[in-house]
């Protein structure tokens, strides 16, 4: 499609990706076990994910980018954060 947003100032966005709730997350578990060893007690529900930063001219297309490439909706949940705050979250439409 002809890009109506061409020339607009891009928006800085962050996509936060984490393992889908309920799926075993051995990385999170390993971190959770390591913290008490350093004296940090009282930490629970640790999950390790991925941060993707991008400048995007049309932020409305971010959810589609997340669904089609940036995440695998079968195994990951994501949250889109734009420079001005939380903009949306997504998960597999189960």
């Amino acid at each position, binding site marked *: 499609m002809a890009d109506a947003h061409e020339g607009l100032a891009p928006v800085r966005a962050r996509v936060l990706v984490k393992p889908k709730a309920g*799926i*075993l997350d*051995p*990385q999170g578990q*390993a971190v959770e076990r390591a913290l008490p060893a350093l004296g940090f007690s009282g930490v629970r529900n640790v999950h390790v994910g991925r941060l993707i930063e991008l400048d995007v001219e049309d932020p409305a297309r971010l959810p589609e980018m997340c669904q089609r*490439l*940036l995440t*695998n909706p*079968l*195994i990951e949940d994501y949250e889109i954060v734009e420079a001005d705050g939380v903009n949306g979250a997504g998960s597999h439409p*189960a």
Partner: protein
Amino acid sequence: MKFGVIRFPGSCDDVDALLACRRVGEAVILWHADRDLQDVDCVVVPGGFSYGDYLRVGAIARFAPVMEEVAEFAHAGGLVLGICNGFQVLCEAGLLPGALLPNTSLRFIFRQVELEVVTQSSPFTGRCDPDQQLSIPVKHTTGRYYAPDDQLARMEAAEQVLLRYAPGQNPNGSLNDIAGVCNEQRNVFGLMPHPEHAVDPLTGPTGGLPIFESIRAHVTDGALV
């Protein structure tokens, strides 16, 4: 019959796959940027680290030009075999159900495993003996097969699980000890173990051969699924 083995930037088991295929038929390399499948009867998506496995394993390779053709080929009923990284690519491409997650140990594993052939009713296991165990090596960091409960139940009911790790041998924490699954139409098969590394008695057990022989039998003898 003719096999085509895809070569992505970062593939590393393509030559072993090529040589394994040549034990039972002809085989050519298919370059990732080409769209010509060269009239092959079976496409092999080999192991390795396609496109560096950036973002997620297999996530970028699915957009390679050759994969568009492979998807069309698969939808038309063509045989597709995905090994290790190839399995991951086929899952990311939606040609196989489910996904591969990091091993529960978080470690790279490299060992010989015994596999149970769950069913002979597929182009990829038709020449295996009933209750045969295949001795094949695994080598991966991201091999824990996962599918949502309801999908997994449907797959089990439809006998889409073709190979399981023998009891006590699951190296990665995969659900239901799954080592390899096929699609509903049974013409696309992915597995984490490497049958192409187990075809020559010079280097060890030959548990991988029956997979390639099954494919050849299916194509040349018209063996029924």
